[in-house]
């Protein structure tokens, strides 16, 4: 490169030309000198020109030897001087017969190479003038040819000299002109080249500037080997590498987090992919020279620089971004964890709440059940308390009413007797009235008797084992006059023994009431079915009648004292109330089922004996 550039340098060319000319001139000059010397020695004709020639040759030799250390201008000046001296001295001695006069042509050639054009032109013109002057001296024969040279008239003519001068002049001018032109063109070319060169280097400098001024590290890799070919300043800065030369010695693995052959292979395969498939962008774990790691984003792009396949790697330090992303990721993860935790907590709480809720619900249900039980117990308590109070009250009232009733009854009995004995004539009128009073008394007596059953005083009946079938049969017997010819009684008794611990009298009364109601419910003909069965040590007696039934409004009130639907005088409204009391007193239960118009079933449950 350096040599080439020198070859294109005009000064270099000029120097080469002058040096070569000096060498050639020395050789030729030397040869000519010795030939001349030899001929002179033979003829013995020495003149002072020989001295000039010797001087000239010596100075030429000296300059030739020392040509390398001398400037072009003195060398050229010597060269031109020698040419002038050689040619003009020859002309001086040999006139028109001079052979060296043609060397005058070389004057403008050398002059134009080393001197400015005008100076060269003047020098040449002066040389031509000197030539003509010498010719004039020959014409005037002031100058004589050396001995042995025949003077011919032609050579003395001034015109011959002038023609010679013109020829030399024209050839010299042509050379001057052409050389000048060539030089001009050459230097123009050189200038142009230099200009282009400047432009190119400028642009290259610009590119390099751009190349170096990026914040991203740029590697230029060899497309084939993957070796680092060039890097920019940013790369040095980022990787902490001292110089680009150092950088070019590093492998990709050296600059990666994991410095091993795998990393290198991977990097090279990525470079190949970039060549084959176009730009590759990826993230890379890089390492600085001092071992510090950083995250980078690398974009690989295949390109051609200086006709060679290159891959441009632009490396951006994304550590911060990455860290932010990682941090974000971490936050996100922890947030997710947090959310998950919270969700789990919430779920647990929810489950707990649900469990609690269920518990509460269960408690509520239990409470509800308990409340219901409590309410019914309370009702029962109230009822039994009511009944107890009522019982005591009723018994007291009954007793108190007994006396006044006794008065009436006794009074009427006495009156009746008196009428029979002493006022028989009024008997017809009075006996219905007495009858009415007696009816009233007997009804009142019935009520009082009924009420007296509530009294605790009669709880003292003996508890004995009773056969319920027997009791029912007794009751039916008592009611026989109300049943016969009208009602069919169907006894569906259990085969097993039905012994119940009870107060016989009370149990009679209870069943008598039930059966009386059944009988009274039947208007005209009907059926009473009595079924007994046993279940879990409980006796179940069901009395079903085909009577008028009990309406829904009434069925809940039938055990209330004094509630009755019967005609006045037929019932006190105490029967079922007393019956219920008796059954419950025996730890039993009485249930009423009825459908108006179809009939009623009274079910009595009593604990079996034993």
């Amino acid at each position, binding site marked *: 490169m350096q040599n080439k550039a020198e070859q294109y340098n005009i000064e270099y060319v000029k120097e080469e030309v002058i040096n070569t000319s000096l060498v050639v001139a020395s050789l030729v000059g030397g040869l000519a000198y010795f030939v001349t010397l030899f001929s002179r020695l033979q003829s013995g004709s020495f003149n002072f020109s020989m001295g000039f020639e010797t001087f000239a040759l010596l100075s030429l030799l000296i300059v030739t030897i020392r040509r390398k250390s001398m400037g072009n201008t003195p060398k050229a000046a010597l060269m031109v001087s020698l040419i002038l001296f050689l040619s003009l001295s020859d002309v001086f001695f040999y006139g028109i017969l001079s052979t060296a006069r043609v060397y005058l042509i070389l004057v403008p050639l050398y002059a134009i190479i080393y001197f400015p054009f005008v100076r060269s032109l003047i020098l040449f013109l002066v040389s031509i003038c000197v030539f003509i002057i010498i010719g004039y001296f020959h014409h005037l024969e002031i100058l004589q040819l050396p001995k042995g040279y025949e003077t011919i008239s032609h050579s003395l003519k001034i015109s011959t000299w002038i023609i010679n001068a013109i020829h030399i002049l024209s050839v010299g001018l042509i050379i001057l002109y052409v050389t000048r032109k060539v030089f001009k063109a050459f230097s123009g070319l050189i200038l142009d080249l230099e200009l282009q060169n400047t432009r190119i280097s400028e642009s290259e400098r610009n590119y390099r500037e751009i190349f170096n001024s990026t914040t991203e590290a740029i590697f230029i890799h060899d497309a084939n080997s993957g070796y680092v070919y060039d890097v920019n300043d940013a790369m040095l800065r980022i990787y902490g590498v001292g110089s680009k030369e150092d950088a070019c010695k590093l492998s990709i693995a050296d600059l990666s987090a994991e410095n091993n052959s795998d990393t290198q292979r991977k990097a090279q395969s990525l470079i190949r992919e970039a060549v084959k498939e176009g730009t590759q962008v990826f993230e890379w774990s890089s390492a600085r020279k001092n071992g510090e790691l950083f995250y980078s984003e690398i974009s690989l792009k295949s390109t051609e620089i200086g006709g060679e396949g290159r891959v441009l790697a632009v490396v951006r330090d994304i550590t911060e971004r990455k860290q932010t992303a990682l941090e974000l990721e971490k936050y996100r993860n922890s947030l997710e964890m947090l959310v998950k935790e919270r969700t789990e907590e919430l779920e647990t709480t929810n489950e707990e709440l649900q469990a609690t809720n269920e518990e509460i619900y269960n408690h509520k249900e239990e409470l509800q059940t308990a409340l219901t039980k409590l309410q019914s117990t309370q009702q029962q308590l109230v009822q039994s308390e009511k009944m107890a109070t009522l019982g005591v009250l009723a018994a007291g009232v009954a007793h108190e009413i*007994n*006396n006044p009733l006794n008065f009436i009854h006794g009074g009427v009995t006495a009156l009746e007797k008196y009428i029979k004995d002493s006022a028989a004539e009024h008997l017809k009128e009075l006996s219905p009235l007495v009858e009415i009073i007696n009816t009233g008394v007997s009804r009142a007596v019935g009520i009082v008797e009924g009420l007296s059953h509530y009294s605790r*005083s009669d709880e003292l009946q003996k508890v004995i084992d009773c056969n319920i079938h027997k009791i029912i049969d007794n009751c039916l017997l008592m009611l026989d006059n109300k049943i016969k010819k009208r009602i069919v009684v169907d006894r569906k008794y259990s085969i097993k023994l039905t012994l119940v611990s009870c107060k016989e009298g009370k149990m009679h009364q209870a069943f008598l009431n039930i059966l009386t109601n059944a009988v009274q419910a039947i208007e005209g003909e009907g059926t009473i079915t009595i079924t007994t069965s046993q279940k879990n040590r409980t006796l179940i007696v069901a009395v079903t009648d085909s009577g008028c039934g009990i309406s829904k409004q009434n069925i809940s009130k039938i055990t209330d004292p004094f509630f009755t639907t019967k005609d006045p005088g037929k019932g006190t409204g105490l029967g079922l109330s007393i019956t219920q009391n008796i059954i419950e007193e025996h730890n039993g239960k009485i249930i009423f089922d009825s459908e108006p118009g179809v009939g009623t079933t009274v079910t009595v449950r009593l604990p079996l004996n034993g």
Partner: protein
Amino acid sequence: MSKKTSVLYVDDEPINLKLFELNLVNIFNITTASSGFEGLEILKKNPDIPVVVSDMRMPKMNGLEFIAKAKKEFPNTVFYILTGYDINEQIADALNDRLINKYFRKPLNYKEIETAIIELML
């Protein structure tokens, strides 16, 4: 019937005494007392009264207390008691102890008493 049976009736209620007398005077020889104490007095004076009917409920001394005392002194006398209630423990015990022969429910059925006493005297 040669002679009417004497019957002592004890009741704190004068109307009852009156009615008892009115209704049974033709059949029995009725003596009345308005308390147990008075009844005992009468029995002491007339120890030959064979039948005593007493109300149960009376102030200070009830029917059974009166009968219990009287029976001690006059073990051969027959006692009946009247009660507004159904049979109770005291009466049941009195029946068992043969302190009383029978009990009658109030209001009195004079016919029942009449029959019971007549049957007793036969």
